[in-house]
């Protein structure tokens, strides 16, 4: 009887936590209780960078993390983090469920990890306190908070705006005091952070649709019988539709709450100039032939 310890930075009840718990139920059912999962949520075991190292060393068995912290470790993970790489959430689902997704999951095995499945992380769009953004020209000169990552800083600069990396907790008051004009995030975070109270213009440009990943420690995976390994892989795959459903429900809930607060939302926007502005960013980050092929494959996916 083995209990797999999994880490998540999100709180209990969050879609990713619920999905891993669901996977645990499936495992228990399919192995007659030989395997189960215990999720340590709310970053109890550390932030993502730390828990990744813990998984690599086999201190914990499983980990639900964003792709961001992997970008400097596994180059393939940079591709889904590229701005405007996916045309829509459906496009992202198709790609990650297909051969490109498998190729990325495979890349984890060189780093003492086993990639199990991709979860949704929502689509991020810009919001600000100044004016509705209807075109790329409207972005000129605005100051946006971004996550601490060179690529996101370059993305914002390429769009003609100014990027200010700062901790998430400082964003609300910084918008309020005018230190920055806005930030970018998905519906649930825009809602739960209360940023919509101070930044009333939200433009759904969906510049980042970055999936998240569920990985397992290679040492823990190798301890299982071949049969159990397949059961684990299948249970992870089966948790994905559940996760997507939960995520969509949460997104709809947040959207309804924010809309009720009277925020001005720009939905139909021509993304072409935004995508064209990304050429230098892609040139800088998509360097190897492998990565270039991946980008081409994604763009060819209908």
């Amino acid at each position, binding site marked *: 009887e083995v209990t797999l310890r999994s880490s998540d930075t999100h709180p209990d009840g969050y879609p990713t936590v619920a999905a891993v718990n669901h996977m645990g139920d499936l495992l228990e059912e399919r192995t007659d209780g030989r395997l189960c999962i215990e999720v340590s949520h709310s970053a*109890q075991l550390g932030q993502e960078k730390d828990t990744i190292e813990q998984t690599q060393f086999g201190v914990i068995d499983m980990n639900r993390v964003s792709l961001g912290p992997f970008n400097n470790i596994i180059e393939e993970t940079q591709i889904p983090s590229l701005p405007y790489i996916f045309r829509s959430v459906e496009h992202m689902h198709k790609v990650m469920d297909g051969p490109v997704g498998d190729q990325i999951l495979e890349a984890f095995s060189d780093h003492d990890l086993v990639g199990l499945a991709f979860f949704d992380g929502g689509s991020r769009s810009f919001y600000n306190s100044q004016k509705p953004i209807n075109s790329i020209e409207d972005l000129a000169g605005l100051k946006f908070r971004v996550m601490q990552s060179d690529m996101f800083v370059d993305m914002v600069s390429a769009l003609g705006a100014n990027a200010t990396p700062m*901790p998430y907790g*400082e964003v609300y008051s910084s918008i309020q005091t005018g230190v920055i004009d806005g930030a970018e995030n998905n519906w649930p975070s825009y809602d739960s952070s209360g940023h919509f109270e101070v930044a009333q213009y939200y433009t759904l440009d969906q510049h980042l649709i970055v999936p998240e990943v569920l990985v397992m420690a290679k040492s823990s995976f190798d301890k299982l019988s071949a049969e159990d390994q397949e059961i684990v892989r299948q249970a992870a795959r089966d948790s994905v539709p559940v996760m997507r459903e939960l995520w969509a429900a949460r997104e709809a809930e947040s959207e309804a709450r924010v809309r009720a607060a009277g925020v001005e939302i720009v939905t139909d926007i021509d993304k072409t100039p935004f995508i064209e502005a990304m050429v230098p960013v892609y040139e800088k980050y998509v360097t190897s032939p492998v990565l270039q092929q991946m980008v081409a494959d994604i763009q060819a996916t209908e």
Partner: protein
Amino acid sequence: MELYVLFGTFVFLLLIGTPVAFCLGVSSFATVAYLGLPPVVVFQRLNSGVSVFALMAIPFFIYAGDLMVRGDIARRLVALAGAFVGHLRGGLGQVNILASVMFGGVSGSAAADASAVGGLMVPQMKERGYGVDYAVNITVVSSIIALMLPPSHNMIIYSISAGGRISIADLFTAGIIPGFLLAMSLMTAAWFVAKKRGYPTEKFPGLAMMGTLFVSAAPGLILVAIIFGGVRSGIFTASESSNIAVVYALLITFFVYRSLSWHDFVEATFAAVRTTAMVLLVIGCAASFGWLLAYLKVPAAMVEMLQGVSDNPIVILLLLNVVLLILGTFMDMSPLIVITTPIFLPVATAFGVDPVHFGVILILNLGIGLCTPPVGAVLFVGCAVGRIPIFDAVKSIWPFYGAAFGTLMLVTYIPALSLWLPSLFH
């Protein structure tokens, strides 16, 4: 069994005199080995426990405090306090307390307050015929005020121990009313004791003199506004504003007061290195210890156990306060914050206590622990400054403990004392 290994090793090492940081690190190591987990996790937690940008406010605020003590800022604040309250009953005792309010507005260290304000006030009080025990008692207990008023690096330690999700600006704001309340309770206690013992009062120096002293102390007071205003408005992070405090203190003491020599500067830097390396190593090792607590699900078990004891928040809060006071008599503040926050905060929130409110209770409670024997860093400093044995100081300290404990009870059971002021900023 894992818990016996963890706590057993910790207590054993503590008793044989191993530094607290290593007690935490080694007991975590022993437990990880017992569980058969890769020991590398202990050192990974230690390393990432100290690699947090928000922690940087701690060395900076401590550094700024060391520079101000050596650079004459503290002395000028004490002189100004003298003009305000010297003429009240218990004159210099009142001055000592008000000086702690002013110094507490620029420093967050109770030990620095006791040595800076006490170092200036105790000799004066002796000379004017006050009992040394009275002078030391007031010096010691009033230094808790520095912990409550912003800046308070202990509140930053609390926020980080709670996972970094509690607003430092809110914690800083929440401590202000309790800090002033503590000052007023202590002034009342000082008044009664002074009356009973027949202590003198000082002459009111006149408004002109007050003005002069105010101008002389103004740079120190401006620092209060910079630190609090910067953090509260969200313009600066706590780390940035603590950095501004260091730069400001350097500029004032080097160029305006011209009171800081190169030698003072080097000594202040080394003093800050010693204090912060010691505090931050404890925080790092406690990150390993805390990781094990989470891994072994101790906080959840603690919540469940206390829910079995009582479902009344009043009883639970009293229980938590008593446990913290007892722990505080034996251990220092920063290790206790980092060890107890992950265990007790979930309990408090499970009973509906706001995390910001609990932070204020915790800091005030452990602040009292700094003044109680057998292990009370500030008590030791106060006794060293007054050159009296600890026993002599503690014999007559009861009215002041009483005032501090009364304040603690008010702060515990009237959440608005802590939460009303921050709510104005939301």
